[in-house]
């Protein structure tokens, strides 16, 4: 049998392939992004795959392909499912003619997210099954199970991972693809039109389906009881938490749930009857615990474990010790310290990043900056510190607008909303439309770096390329803004310091909504080599202005200035990519292109 090391995301892509998926759509979001990337890399001859402008569109696309009887999936991070929630709740009523799986990746610990939401709640709220794999092999196997279950019960299925499942690797045994031909589209008004009269009847079926699912849970291969010699305590767990229990107590009695919603009542009752105490182990939300308690079954859980941050074996060990069910020695962080003070190493804008020109200028003008989600959120980091709000995809524009409606139009003379190209297309357009419609004076900067950068360089409707590797029509941002009714639109190169400053001052001074598009490609997608820059030590006065651009290629490590003894700046020729922004801000023109032989 072919065995491979795969991440959870890679295994989900493999499961989609083996399970006969035909259509896959997603908007990128950590930690779910690689699922579609792996599909594009390895399986695009069998699976049509695409980046949609946002998760709602992706969900609607796959509900359409499911209506046509094709096995279909969409994938998103947890907050992406908030965006896709509207279609999800109605698809739950319509059902899945072709299997339909919503993959959602939660991020306990907020490794790269704005919250720690637990998307199992969506399964309960939308009344659809929730499936939780706990390693890469299960990601592949459960993906196929989810597809089969979806078809069998005519329901969308929520397949939920977490960062440590999605981004951890394990050994996966591969199988063959099983083809599931597209059944074909047939008009069916009674089934596919959710008007109230239909929806009320559909809801009856949805409730019946939930009952069937709860009964199926007792015999589902997704759930299993692991017997152990010590029956005084039994653990109910799912997802990554299962691995921590096994790490600590490999022979414990465990009810491992893969199908966590609806709760398999009979199985839970049987298990609880076999063991003395029931302890539920789950990250973040006491989702299973509350449901088990609602059945009238005594159990414990949350009181031993934190509600905040992700688990690890140590945290679970501490909780189990508190519960009195784990007595073995287990490692803890050592109570040692080093003499040196450890400097922080937070993420920062890359050398050559075009956003640097934007935030340097915003800082210089000392304006309020309402921000958004992307690499440019790093504009909040010192020394730039020029981004003051960040909440959800698209909120920057409406934040600036909301400030204005509260405080008055004068605040818009010193307020700028910044939003990336991909984020603008995701959910900024409607906010901009609102600002124009409701007579605002805000200034919006669309930071168009020609790619969805933060998640690792995905194409979007503005880049001219698709996930399948084809060229595509690019959205014309200027024409788009114009059609909404924006009168004042300009485009500028953000790494041209003078032009950037003048354009921003002009936009702020103009009445009505202004849009300033800063157009320059992400430094990481520029292929041609540019000349790097260097500091002329004879000219540098060690004033430190260049350090304020916040580029990691520039440091205060040159020779000291003879009068002030302050250290001059130096540019690391390996890190510098030659954007030349620092040379433009140097007040004494000490930064110049390095002679080629120096490189």
């Amino acid at each position: 049998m072919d065995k491979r090391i795969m991440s959870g995301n890679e295994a989900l892509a493999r499961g989609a392939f083996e399970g006969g998926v035909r259509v896959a759509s997603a908007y990128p979001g950590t930690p779910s992004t690689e699922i579609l990337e792996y599909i594009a890399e390895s399986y695009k001859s069998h699976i049509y795959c695409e980046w949609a402008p946002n998760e709602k569109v992706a969900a609607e696309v796959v509900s359409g392909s499911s209506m046509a009887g094709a096995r279909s999936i969409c994938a998103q991070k947890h907050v992406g499912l908030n965006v896709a929630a509207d279609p999800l709740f109605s698809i739950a009523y319509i059902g899945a003619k072709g299997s339909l799986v919503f993959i959602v990746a939660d991020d306990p610990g907020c490794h790269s997210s704005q919250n720690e939401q637990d998307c199992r709640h969506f399964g309960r709220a939308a009344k659809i099954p929730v499936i939780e794999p706990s390693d890469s092999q299960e990601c592949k196997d459960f993906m196929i199970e989810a597809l089969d279950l979806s078809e069998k019960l005519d329901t969308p299925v929520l397949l939920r991972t977490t960062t440590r499942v999605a981004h951890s690797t394990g050994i996966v045994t591969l199988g063959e693809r099983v083809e599931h031909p597209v059944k074909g589209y047939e008009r069916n008004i009674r089934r596919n039109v959710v008007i109230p009269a239909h929806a009320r009847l559909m809801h009856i079926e949805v409730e019946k389906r939930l009952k069937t699912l709860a009964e199926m849970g007792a015999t589902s291969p997704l759930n299993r009881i692991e017997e152990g010699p010590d029956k005084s305590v039994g653990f109910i767990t799912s997802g990554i938490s299962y691995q921590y229990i096994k790490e600590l107590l490999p022979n414990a009695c465990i009810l491992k749930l893969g199908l966590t919603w609806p709760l398999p009542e009979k199985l839970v009752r049987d298990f609880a009857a076999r063991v003395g105490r029931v302890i539920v182990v789950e990250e973040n939300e006491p989702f299973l615990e509350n449901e088990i308690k609602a059945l009238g079954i005594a159990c414990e859980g949350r009181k031993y474990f934190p509600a905040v941050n992700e688990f690890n074996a140590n945290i679970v060990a501490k909780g189990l010790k508190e519960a009195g069910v784990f007595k073995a020695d287990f490692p803890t962080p050592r109570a040692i310290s080093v003499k040196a003070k450890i400097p922080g190493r937070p993420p920062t804008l890359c050398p050559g990043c075009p956003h640097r020109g934007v935030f340097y200028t915003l800082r210089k003008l000392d304006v309020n900056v309402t921000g958004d989600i992307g690499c440019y959120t790093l504009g909040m980091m010192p020394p730039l510190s020029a981004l003051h709000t960040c909440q959800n995809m698209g909120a920057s524009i409406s934040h600036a607008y909301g400030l204005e409606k509260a405080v008055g139009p004068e605040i818009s003379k010193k307020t700028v909303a910044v939003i990336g190209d991909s984020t603008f297309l995701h959910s900024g357009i409607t906010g901009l439309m609102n600002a124009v419609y409701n007579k605002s004076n805000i200034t919006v900067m669309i930071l168009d770096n020609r790619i969805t950068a933060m998640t690792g360089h995905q194409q979007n409707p503005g880049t001219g390329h698709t996930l399948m590797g084809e060229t595509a029509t690019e959205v014309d941002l200027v024409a788009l803004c114009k059609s909404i009714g924006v009168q004042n639109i300009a485009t500028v190169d953000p790494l041209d310091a003078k032009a950037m400053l003048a354009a921003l001052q002009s936009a702020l001074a103009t009445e009505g909504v202004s849009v300033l598009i800063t157009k320059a490609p992400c430094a990481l997608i520029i292929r041609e080599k540019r000349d790097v820059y260097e500091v002329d030590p004879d000219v540098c006065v060690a004033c430190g202005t260049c350090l304020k651009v916040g580029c990691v290629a520039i440091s205060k490590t040159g020779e000291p200035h003879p009068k002030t003894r302050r250290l001059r700046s130096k540019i690391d020729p390996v890190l510098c990519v030659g954007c030349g922004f620092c040379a433009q801000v140097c007040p004494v023109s000490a930064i110049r292109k390095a002679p080629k032989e120096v490189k």
Partner: protein
Amino acid sequence: MTGVTNVLISGVGGQGTILASDILSEAALEAGFDVKKSEIHGMAQRGGTVVSQVRFGPKVYSPIIPEGDVHYFLAFELVESLRFVQNVRADGAILVNEQIIPSSTILAGLDEYPADPLEGVSSLVRELTVIPAAKAATELGNPRVANVILLGALAKRTGLPLDAFRNAIRRLVKPRFVDLNLKAFEKGLSY
């Protein structure tokens, strides 16, 4: 878990920590072990600390290493060797690349790079070895292979068969860089 070896790899975005941990994982698989690896993507890629953890043994459950249970800590930068030192076992080893990469907070004047980062560290662990991997990689003709030099130094300590690493390098590295990386691996074995 009994018989599980825990390797923590920490560096700065762009140093090749992920390739090193992938090669280690493949080598452990070829040696017949269960293996899991966990890493964090996203914000960490932009010049921040990048951490990768590899666990191998007869059976591995948790993909992340229990705190305080690291057997080998491979640090790709001097102060990065300090960041997780409390998680290294007293009988564990720290292998550290003799390279300084100032962080953005240092460049912004908010932090200082310590004058003697490794002061007192050798007394906390069984082994502390400083490896001039960045320098050795430049001598081999490409500073980017420092990661595989460090991996070589780790490989000979893990007890895994060295040919499993060489085979993994042949599978995972782009064909035109395989010879260079194999040379880097051999160089690493000398530390």
